[in-house]
């Protein structure tokens, strides 16, 4: 005969964890998709200028960066507080730029060499003098595709 058990105390069932890996994987793929590895450790402080007509950089692997700005506090003692150039992971002079560009270009695949882009990431308070020196050096090194790095400004403030 069927018996109807009548429990006096009811326990809440344990949380179902079988779908947990799926959720974690979902998160994982999301972060994998949006991740961009940090290019370098910054030694100069760069606050990018803002502009409204910016375009996205297409080819990240073919882009080399030139950072221009004042040295971070921890380097200020050794390198002063004057605006400096950073190439790769180290401080550099304008004179070294030519060598750097040529070396980076020869390291590239032959088909990609003339697609190389140099992004100038300069602080917004930089004087144009140093930017012009960089531009001139790039021109001499035949790195003619350049990008003035700027962040997107949503609301134009100048009108």
């Amino acid at each position, binding site marked *: 005969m069927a018996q109807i058990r009548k429990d006096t105390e009811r326990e809440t069932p344990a949380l179902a964890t079988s779908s947990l890996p799926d959720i974690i994987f979902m998160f994982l793929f999301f972060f994998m998709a949006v991740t961009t590895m940090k290019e370098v450790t910054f030694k100069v402080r760069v606050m990018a200028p803002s502009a409204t007509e910016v375009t996205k950089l297409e080819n990240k692997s073919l882009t080399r960066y030139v950072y221009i700005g004042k040295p971070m506090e921890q380097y200020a003692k050794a390198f002063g507080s004057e605006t400096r150039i950073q190439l790769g992971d180290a401080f550099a002079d304008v004179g070294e730029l030519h060598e750097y560009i040529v070396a980076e270009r020869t390291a590239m695949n032959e088909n990609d060499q003339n697609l190389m882009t140099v992004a100038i990431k300069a602080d917004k308070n930089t004087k144009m003098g140093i930017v012009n020196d960089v531009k001139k050096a790039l021109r001499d090194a035949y790195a003619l595709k350049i990008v003035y790095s*700027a962040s997107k400004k949503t609301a134009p403030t100048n009108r």
Partner: protein
Amino acid sequence: MADIAFLLLIFFLVTTSMSTSTGLSRRLPPPLPPDQPVPPVDINKRNLFVVKVNSMNQLMVQGEEMQLKDLREKVKEFIKNENDDPTMPVKVRMNIPLLGEMEVTKDHVISLQNDVDTQYQAYINVQNELVAAYNELRNELSQQKFGKLFDDLADDQKEAIQDVYPMKISEAEPKNYGGAK
């Protein structure tokens, strides 16, 4: 399983920086051979639009002082030259695929000159206005001809529009005018 996933998840969490690089692209002119004199610049004066930025970040456009917000309209007016004004660029009849015969100011040049002490943000602001003027002109034309924005056009249509409004911004070597203080 979940442990490995967690491990990877944490790794990517730490290394993530969600910034995407954006900027204004430009093409520099090729370098001059060192032992040759600078070739004489052969630009008709009316084709030239001069924008100067001084060390105080003030603008001088075609010999007149100007505010940044007025620059875009002025540049558009110059490139378009609707009324064939003799102070504005020469119009040349060109046969452009998809668009047919059009009068184009194809020889115009916008010359942007700056001082050594110009602030970078001010320079970018001016560059931005110049690019904005081109973008607006191109959008207007593509709306009128194809009923779409320039960015949504097919490649050959884009080329046609670019033939009408080629982007010609020259960044000259800086001069030290008005810098003596």
